[in-house]
């Protein structure tokens, strides 16, 4: 039988379609796919540790880490989380806001670019952790030095992406504003700001992830609370389960904060006409 006549027997084809409909809505199916790999890793680790291929004093079983997390959650964990979260949010807010202000200034004015850009390029080439000794000398070991370090870490990605976002704005859209005789403020509000938004979010998101990185650096060096402190505490007391528990908490918090920014991005940039990947 030729394939052509097969096509003609379409009732069967039509019947097979509804049964192929997904049992969940597709959004959930995608999320479940994302869980497959972590679940697999946890299972394999659990088995490997249980049958003794890895010594449990070096690699505690996932179930043991879960117990440790449970214990911590009844005690000091929330104190550490809130201390770290406060530092990250404060540092990120300060760093990102300053970065946005300077990015707008440099992006909009070639004059400002000529004055400021070489200095920023120089400062950017300093590995940010090199500031640590100086910050400790100047600001002491309390909160200020940590927040400042995190702010420095968040500053550069936001600044760089901000300038690039402004300079990537379609000149043709700006010309529409000129055609209507928009003044500078109106041009910024009506055209430049919305048009720069797509380029701004990647900067904010990588600024946020660098903020977490510098938080850990700051807390590993000198802190009495916070997730970085928990990490070094776990090392000093030879408790890999505590170290891993802290890492998991950091991962969850990092993912949550990035998820919030990603959600905002999706919400504000729904107008973008971009490729979203194929089904396969």
């Amino acid at each position, binding site marked *: 039988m030729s394939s052509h006549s097969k096509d003609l027997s379409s009732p069967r084809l039509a019947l097979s379609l509804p049964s192929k409909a997904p049992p969940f809505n597709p959004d959930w199916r995608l999320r479940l796919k994302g869980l497959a790999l972590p679940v697999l890793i946890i299972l394999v680790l659990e088995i490997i540790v249980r049958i003794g291929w890895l010594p449990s004093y070096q690699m505690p079983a996932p179930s043991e880490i879960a117990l440790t997390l449970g214990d911590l959650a009844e005690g000091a964990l929330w104190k550490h989380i809130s201390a770290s979260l406060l530092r990250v949010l404060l540092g990120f807010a300060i760093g990102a806001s300053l970065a946005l202000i300077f990015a707008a200034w440099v992006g909009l004015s070639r004059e400002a670019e000529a004055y400021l850009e070489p200095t920023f390029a120089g400062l950017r080439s300093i590995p940010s952790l090199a500031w640590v000794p100086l910050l400790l000398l100047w600001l002491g070991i309390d909160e200020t030095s940590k927040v400042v370090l995190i702010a420095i870490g968040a500053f550069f990605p936001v600044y760089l992406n901000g300038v690039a976002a402004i300079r990537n704005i379609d000149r*043709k859209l700006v*010309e*529409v504003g000129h*055609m209507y005789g928009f003044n500078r403020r109106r041009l910024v509000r009506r055209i430049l700001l919305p048009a720069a*938004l797509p380029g701004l979010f990647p900067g904010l998101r990588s600024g946020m992830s660098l903020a977490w990185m510098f938080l850990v650096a700051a807390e590993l060096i000198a802190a009495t609370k916070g997730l970085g402190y928990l990490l070094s505490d776990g090392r000093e007391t030879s408790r890999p389960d505590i170290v891993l528990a802290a890492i998991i908490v950091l991962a969850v918090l990092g993912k949550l904060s990035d998820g919030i920014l990603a959600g905002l991005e999706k919400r504000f940039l729904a107008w*973008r006409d971009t490729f979203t990947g194929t089904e396969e």
Partner: protein
Amino acid sequence: MTQALLDIHVERKTFATTTVLSNIRLQLQPRETVSLLGPSGCGKSTLLRIVAGLERDFEGHLLSDTEQLAFVFQEARLMPWLTVQQNIGFSEDDDYDEAWVAHLIDEVGLTGFADILPKALSGGMAQRVAIARGLYSRPRVLLLDEPFSAVDAFTRMKLQDLLLQLAERHDIALLLVTHDVDEALYLSDRVLMMDTRPSSIRHELTVQLEHPRDRRDPLLARLKAVALGELHSAHVI
């Protein structure tokens, strides 16, 4: 004779050391449709930009009321983050006249698309929105820079008819840049044929046909032959 809406005399316009336009004189009367016809790079878009006030660095003089001008670009240039109606009322921020915008949306044939984002529009629909945005400020003159060059031939014919209807209804004069001989002849009362660099107006064709016109009218065919002959002797084609 009535007062011209637009009177421009460009003695010279240069980019760096290249002279792009030289000695061009152009007047636009109320309700008149004039086309600037010439090859790419002949400076016709530059001339239009000078008229629009987007290009100020030239030798010559320009008499026009910029309040009465509106510009439709080659690409629709809609703000992708604004809906169709917000784009049409763009010049007045969020305080645009909603009833007038709704009226214009109906007039350009986009009823029901007011809250759609530009990404969901086809090229022809986007250009309809761009025309509506041009009409929003109730201009006396609409400047159009190859407005239909990016759409397919059938859409182009529809949009040309729409443009003529709107110009008639709103009492608007059109100054249109194009490289499409048929488009120029079908739309215009006068076709100004431009030379290559440095450009000046080489020849003026008057199309004495009432609107609405028939695209198959023998006069259009005869004028097209004249136009092609001119372009040929100008070494444009």
